[in-house]
């Protein structure tokens, strides 16, 4: 399984799908986040691997 983390929320998804599909699957908008794995930005077509922890950084800021 792969863990997705966004702010204080976490989800588990199956390996093998793209980052973009994983973001959509958990109900987030790929236009509003950046995916980081092991401290590095990864593009949305990257296939997620077993054991990955993908941090989804919200790009929208206010104030």
């Amino acid at each position, binding site marked *: 399984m792969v863990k997705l983390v966004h702010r204080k929320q976490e989800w588990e998804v199956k390996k093998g799908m793209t980052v973009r599909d994983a973001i959509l699957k958990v109900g987030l908008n790929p*236009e*509003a986040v950046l995916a980081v794995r092991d401290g590095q*930005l990864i*593009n949305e077509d990257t296939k997620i691997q077993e054991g990955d922890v993908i941090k989804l*950084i919200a*790009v*929208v800021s206010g*104030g």
Partner: protein
Amino acid sequence: MKCRKCGRKAVFNMRRHKLALCAEHYLEWFPTQVERTIGKYKMFTRDERVLVAVSGGKDSLALWDVLLNLGYQAEGLYIGLGIDGGFGYSDLSLEKIQGFMATRPGAVLHRVDIPETYGESLPEVAARKQRGRGKPCAVCGLIKRYVMNRVASEGSFEVLATGHNLDDEVAVLFGNTLHWQVGYLARQSPVLEERGGLARKVKPLCRLYEREVAAYALIKGIDYIYDECPYAVGSTTNRYKELLNELELDSPSSKLQFYVTFLKAKEQGLFRQAIEQVELHPCENCGQPTTAPGLCTFCRLW
């Protein structure tokens, strides 16, 4: 997905441009876009002193970083508003700016601390003035605009630059269009020319998506404050940004098209009749330009 320039693995894809780039080429691409925007809208030259409003967030720090690297005379201005939000928001913002400066020797920061200078934090002033129904956003905007202009004027800066990105611009455009605020629509622009003592104001990131600015900051290693202003949570602006991103998901480049076609329509005369020329005169207390009789709205706060 491969980098369009070198064929190595891409780290960032921009659907609106049908362009994917590796880290190295993205860090070349982004400043080029900023330079193009500066040139296209004749924002400023390398001979002019630019005051960059920095908050510790990704947009203002990315902007300052790019301007310094491109060789512009860009100094920062930080306005401490005394916002806590349960986690020391203003203090954390300043820490991020100081961290940024530690890696950029020679970068100059001007600092105005509202609680130190005026005796009250932003939330305290807003509560006392009872403006904004529990949110200090209206007073925040008033204070920031006043201080930015005053520091620019006293420091002889020709230009004031803010980190507003395209998502910020289209959210405002969307809101003003929904409510048909023609006066505001007439005044929305990448450049507000100087007049009556108010500095020229520019938005060099106005054609870059918020996601693109965030990617630049991440790849460049700029440590910025991720938390939003606690008062911005649940704001109408953020709701508009969500809606526009849903549109963008379905139809890449929608946000950009909305913005540039609006600017083109304005250039062709749309809203021309709505542009009011208001008279500015010096405030009786501080001498800064104001439309209000007697004291300016900022001086009336205290």
